[in-house]
């Protein structure tokens, strides 16, 4: 920012109503703006305030001020004011407008703010067609910080960070943001104007007003780029700098309308009123229709404390198996937890989850020593077989567990579950056959709870029928295996 000018300079002889009469947010000199004599910001402020007056939108207007010389815009405009981080005004404006669709939101930005650090925010706000108004003040330089190069600095133009003049080879070409944005489909109105002479100023005022009016009519994204003098940093007199806008800047940044879809644009649809508060729990799916919080008595809760690890390939239904078990436990009034492995392991195609069911509150949901390991493939068996609690069970999807697998001290039910499921109608039901076998071990879990869990999680009737058959089959396999063991024993 330039130092406070010695001669205070009024931007207007008659002040628009949308300006404060005195600038009380300013620390001193509350009757003058902080802008230098001949600064474009002062002129643009006035045309913006006049447009706000003319459109009678002062009460509805929210001005987003940027970081740059116009950071203090909220000292002057008697409207709702929000000051934003450097470059982020379009993101801030987006959310203000979407939160309060009846408001008129103006994103006022310099060229450093908009075309450098905030290039992503302006591009995406424009591409989404946010129905806001952007006032883009292009003075080809970073003024507030004392004259460093901007993306809009002209070729050959010197600045404190391009002391030998901007060269295309080293710093690239001046960025034509308005032209870039005009390649997007969403914007309804983009025009570049200048403050090079009185005629241009009058045209600029018309463009600013149109860009605001478009918003009042709910048409869509409008942006006005204004080539604007900065006598202080350019080291020119106000008159010279105006001439420089007209004679030099304009050659790089030609004036004109770059986009005008206002004729074809439709007014925004009126927002649908929100549903009554009483409906919200139902909408988010937590209305009181779910599972009973307390069972009628403790006696009804099955005596069960089960730690299960389910592992296999992704796509084998490992997580669903665990989820049905946990949901059934919840239905039966137990405490439950279900914790999936996720992340890199999933990418390599393996999948596993930890499930606990207990009458007591569950401390750790991580199962290190499962009572039951459901190993849906050989790598899972190898990885986890030695972790199974002594006296526990391994359910293995294979003809027999490999000889070199240490399964001492645990029971093993090894069956070709995939094939069994295939015979039932679909190999993908192997998880439910294995769950059936597991449920036979967790004998206390009522079948009614399993049924309601399955009903909630499997919506497709064809699959539900197959899964029910698979569960019955799995239970039978386990009963047979146990009978064999007891015969043999």
């Amino acid at each position, binding site marked *: 920012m330039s130092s406070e000018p010695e001669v205070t300079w009024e931007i207007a002889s008659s002040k628009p109503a949308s300006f404060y009469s005195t600038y009380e947010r300013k620390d001193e000199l509350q009757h003058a703006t902080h802008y230098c004599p001949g600064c474009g910001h002062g002129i643009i402020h006035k045309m913006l305030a006049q447009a706000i007056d003319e459109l009678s939108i002062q009460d509805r207007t929210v001005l987003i001020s940027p970081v740059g010389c116009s950071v203090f815009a909220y000292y002057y405009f008697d409207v709702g*004011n929000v000051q934003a981080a450097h470059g982020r005004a379009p993101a*801030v404006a987006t959310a203000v407008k979407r*939160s309060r669709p009846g408001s008129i939101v103006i994103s006022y930005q310099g060229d450093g703010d908009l075309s450098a650090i905030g290039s992503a925010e302006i591009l995406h706000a424009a591409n989404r067609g946010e129905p806001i108004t952007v006032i883009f003040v292009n003075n080809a330089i970073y003024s507030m910080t004392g004259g460093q190069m901007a993306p809009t600095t002209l070729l050959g133009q010197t600045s404190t960070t391009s002391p030998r003049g901007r060269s295309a080879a080293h710093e690239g070409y001046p960025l034509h943001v308005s032209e870039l944005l005009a390649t997007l489909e969403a914007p309804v109105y983009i025009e570049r104007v200048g403050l090079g002479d009185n005629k241009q100023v009058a045209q600029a005022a018309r463009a600013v007003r149109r860009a605001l009016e478009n918003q009042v009519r709910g048409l869509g994204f409008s942006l006005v780029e204004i080539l604007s003098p900065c006598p202080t940093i350019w080291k020119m007199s106000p008159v010279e700098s105006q001439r420089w806008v007209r004679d030099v800047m304009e050659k790089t940044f030609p004036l004109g309308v770059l986009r005008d879809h206002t004729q074809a644009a439709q007014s925004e649809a009126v927002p649908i009123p929100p*549903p009554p508060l*009483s409906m919200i*729990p139902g*909408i988010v799916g937590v209305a009181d229709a*779910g599972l009973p919080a307390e069972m009628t008595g403790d006696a009804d809760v099955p005596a069960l404390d089960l730690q299960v690890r389910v592992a296999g390939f992704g796509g084998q239904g490992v997580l669903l198996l665990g989820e049905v078990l946990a949901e059934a436990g919840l239905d039966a009034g137990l405490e439950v937890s279900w*914790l999936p492995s*996720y992340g890199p392991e999933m990418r390599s195609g393996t999948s596993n989850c930890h499930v606990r069911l207990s009458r007591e509150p569950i401390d750790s949901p991580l199962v290190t020593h499962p009572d039951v390991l459901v190993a849906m493939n050989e790598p899972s068996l190898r990885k986890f077989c030695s972790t199974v609690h002594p006296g526990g069970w391994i359910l293995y999807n294979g003809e027999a567990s490999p000889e070199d697998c240490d399964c001492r001290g645990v029971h093993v039910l090894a069956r070709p579950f995939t094939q069994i499921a295939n015979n039932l109608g679909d190999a993908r039901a192997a998880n439910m056959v294995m769950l059936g076998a597991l449920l036979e071990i967790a004998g206390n879990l009522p079948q009614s709870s399993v049924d309601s869990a399955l009903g909630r999680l499997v919506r497709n009737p064809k699959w539900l029928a197959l899964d029910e058959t698979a569960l019955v089959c799995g239970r039978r396999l386990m009963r047979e295996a146990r009978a064999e063991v007891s015969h043999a024993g």
Partner: protein
Amino acid sequence: MSRHLMKGNEAIVKSAILAGCRGFYGYPITPASEITEAAAALMPQVGGVFLQAESEVAAINMLYGAASAGVRAMTASSGPGISLMQEGISYMAGAELPCVIADITRGGPGLGNIASEQSDYHQVVKGGGHGNYRTLVLAPHSVQEMADLTVLAFELADRYRNPVVLLADGFMGQMMEPVEFPEVATEPRLPRWAVAGTDASRGNVITSMHLDTDKLEAHVRQLEAKYFITEQREARAEDWRTEDAEIVLVGYGIVARILKAVAAEARAAGLPVGVLRPITLYPFPTLHFQRLTARARAFLVVEMSNGQLVGDVRLALNGARPVEFFSRVGGNAPTHLEVLAEVQDLARRHLAGAPAEEELIVHV
């Protein structure tokens, strides 16, 4: 009231909407994406705004806009995304704007991995953005708390006009447990300071800028005073069997769950072990720690980060008791067996009858 089995990530969104949140601006990242996805599904149905931002930088600035307009709003992310949000968090703290940010932490630094860590502690609890500000930080350790602390987060954010972070490890976001929700939804209310594009709010301004040095100093002092009040009123921790504990295990999130299992086993083996679980990481529950020194001989801090929480524990105890440290990182969770081994070792060294006064702080 009924209980619903769901992921922590989903519980956050449902709870937020019931708490009157009507704005969600986010950018996808594992392991937080379910939050963004659930918000995408639900927000429009309740008259709220959901928007996928072009980056976390934009997302946090959209929160800035929504909060300025007086809407309860939130976002969710993880490590790298939270880093990008730090600028905006500082601005929001400076402009005294409320918002809720869920950080479902993954492995770092850099791209790290997407497994669960707790390594965002420093960037969230200590700031991360510029300037003299704090964020209030809540650390859930169950899916029920993912829901409950989300409600508390919105209340604190509004009460203190400050960003509140829900800091949860990846496990918390991904695991499913039963949750109960409140039966009635909270009515969204427009705060009197908001800029809502109305006659009544026209005189309001949202800014973090105070050009005059004295004014900025006064502003920072006022923020400090606010944080001091939160330290007096809002610090929360769970004491789990600490009444007679001589060894106190300290951890938050999934680690606290593991520590409860460890403490149960240690007690079965006759060791007087308890767990102190900070629920607020800022304000830090300093008094809860100091109270325990009457009995406790030593503290063991367990983290899924390389010594971030332990620093605050040492500050809280200020040398009064030895503080030891055990960690797993990279996405590995400490097993209860390895922590139990640490506890047994600690017991050998600290419970052998040596008077506590003679002990030194052991840095591991």
